[in-house]
């Protein structure tokens, strides 16, 4: 039975962080779902940015995270801060009684943090959804449905992420509302191992939950080989039982993106193509081929970001089951395992 939302059937949303993801993704999507959600508060360490952002959506900027979480009109909290703050802020939101926390990927930074989040979910009865938008993209949902009907698992899974710099998409997805108060600091020098770890937890993480769902034995992935590509990218060879995963990413300086996920079995092949992040270009598209025929799903109007919020609305209203906390944690462990193994291989002198 559906539960009515508390205020004119709209769920109140509070957002932690006023960066590109908030402005380019969540605010436009929530504005388009204004019959279900209302952004009521924002908090950012930069109060001026939070205030300027809040005014664009008629929300209130909070001076502290605690103040945001104390607002009883907020049912859902989005954690859009850097990953090192995810666990503490997610747990704080759950302990403040929020019904659901949408935390941007990755879930957190360590296994201990993941366990703490899991504990908080079970103790509070709150829900945690990780913003892995491709899990909610119609392209993946079609692919998952087709694959689930097959008798055999794919022998090979390939994740390919080829992207221009993110800055290419900024002006196509949002506008700068406040000049940066201080110039961004130069990035601290990082070892190659740290770079590949960050690339996996920042870029590969988009599709690792999908990859995991295509593997039969996903409990102990083994990174056999890792290469860091310049200027930014990786090539990973991963084995999971009898299955193998080819993970490739390359960020270049020109315009052409190619973001795909392919699963190949002896008698079938599924192939999804996704849009770059940030832009609202509709869903991905998928083909599913056998030796005799090809079924395909074209681009749909709603992308994974919208799908994510529609799923949240369904979870809040009781029309969909809550996310399984075990799955949430297992997705994180799977990604962290691959990142740590790849970093260790690079440390040991694998290719750069």
């Amino acid at each position, binding site marked *: 039975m559906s539960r009515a939302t508390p205020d004119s059937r709209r769920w109140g949303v509070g957002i932690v962080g006023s960066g590109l993801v908030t402005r380019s993704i969540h605010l436009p999507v929530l504005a388009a779902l204004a019959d279900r959600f209302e952004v009521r508060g924002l908090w950012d360490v930069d109060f001026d940015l939070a205030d300027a952002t809040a005014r664009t959506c008629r929300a209130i900027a909070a001076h502290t995270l605690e103040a945001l979480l104390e607002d009883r009109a907020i049912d859902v909290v989005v954690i859009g801060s850097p990953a090192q703050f995810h666990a503490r802020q997610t747990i704080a939101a759950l302990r403040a009684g929020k019904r659901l926390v949408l935390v941007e990927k990755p879930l957190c930074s360590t296994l201990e943090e993941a366990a703490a989040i899991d504990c908080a979910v079970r103790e509070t009865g709150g829900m945690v959804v990780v913003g892995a938008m491709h899990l909610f993209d119609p392209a993946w949902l079609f692919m998952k449905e087709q694959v689930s009907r097959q008798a055999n698992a794919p022998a090979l899974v390939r994740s390919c992420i080829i992207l221009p710099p993110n800055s290419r998409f900024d002006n196509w997805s949002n506008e700068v509302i406040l000049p940066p108060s201080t110039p961004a600091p130069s990035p601290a020098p990082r070892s190659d191992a740290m770079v590949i770890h960050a690339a996996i937890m920042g870029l590969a993480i988009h599709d690792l939950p999908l990859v995991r769902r295509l593997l039969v034995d996903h409990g102990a992935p083994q990174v056999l080989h890792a290469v860091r590509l310049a200027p930014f990218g990786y090539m990973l060879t991963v084995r999971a039982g009898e299955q193998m995963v080819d993970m490739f990413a390359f960020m*270049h300086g020109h315009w*052409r993106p190619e973001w795909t996920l392919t699963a190949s079995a002896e008698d079938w092949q599924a192939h999804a193509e996704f849009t770059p992040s940030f832009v609202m270009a509709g869903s991905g598209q998928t083909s599913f081929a056998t030796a005799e025929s090809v079924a395909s799903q074209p681009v749909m109007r709603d992308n994974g970001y919208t799908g994510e919020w529609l799923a949240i609305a369904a979870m809040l209203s009781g029309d969909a089951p809550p996310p399984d906390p075990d799955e949430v944690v297992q997705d994180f462990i799977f990604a962290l395992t691959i990142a740590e193994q790849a970093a260790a291989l690079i440390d040991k002198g694998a290719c750069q």
Partner: protein
Amino acid sequence: MTGLAVEIDGFCPLRARGLAASLPASIRLVEQGGEVILMGGQADWPERLMARIRVGQKRFVLSDPQACAAGQLADLIGEAEISHVQIRLCETHADNPAVAPFRSSLVGHFSAVTITGQGEEPIADMLMQQLRLARAAGFEPQSVVHGAAGEAQAIATLEATFGEDPVFLRLTVARSRAGSASHRLLAHGRGDSAGLQVWSDPAARPATAFYLTGENTTGLPSIYESAHRAVLRFAIAMPVTLPTGEALRQWDQDATMALAIAANS
């Protein structure tokens, strides 16, 4: 009768007839006494080729030789060189008529080249197709950095060179009956990118190719001609692109790498 007399050995007769019929002024199939022997590349191809050389035949077109012959060619190469035999390899992917213009279009610098492919052939043969395609496109395989393979899949990373530049070559193959068997090459550079997809069936289905730099993409023209028809046309003149011994040694080097990768299960 006019045209070059072509005799077949281990090559599908019906396919040979179709090819010859599409080149009626240039080629005629004969039962024996051919000026050029069109040989199929089944596993026993070195023995059949050696036997032909020993009876004095001099000109061969060798179609898609299987990789399992790797490491067994020393005697054959020696005999071919002593006898001044011409052997022109004809490989469905590497000799696709789109490959040469694609290679000519590549002028940038690349960090990595990926080739992904699928088909029903043995893993080693599909890896070989990818290595040969890479070489034909200008990316010369040097050594295997890492390879992993199973019954139905393989992933390998190699060191290669593009001109003077070092480049990573990534090969990925899956055995699958689904969809269309093909190999797709993508060259990845900071400011340039290029792609080439070559089909595995013997039809004259055109490869698709593009080259991208800055804000523009150039699509290369469609060529509706199969590798075998194109090679047979050249076989009439039999121009020396690479001396026979060198071509076979290069093939052997690539096949040895393919077998080594496929053995990493």
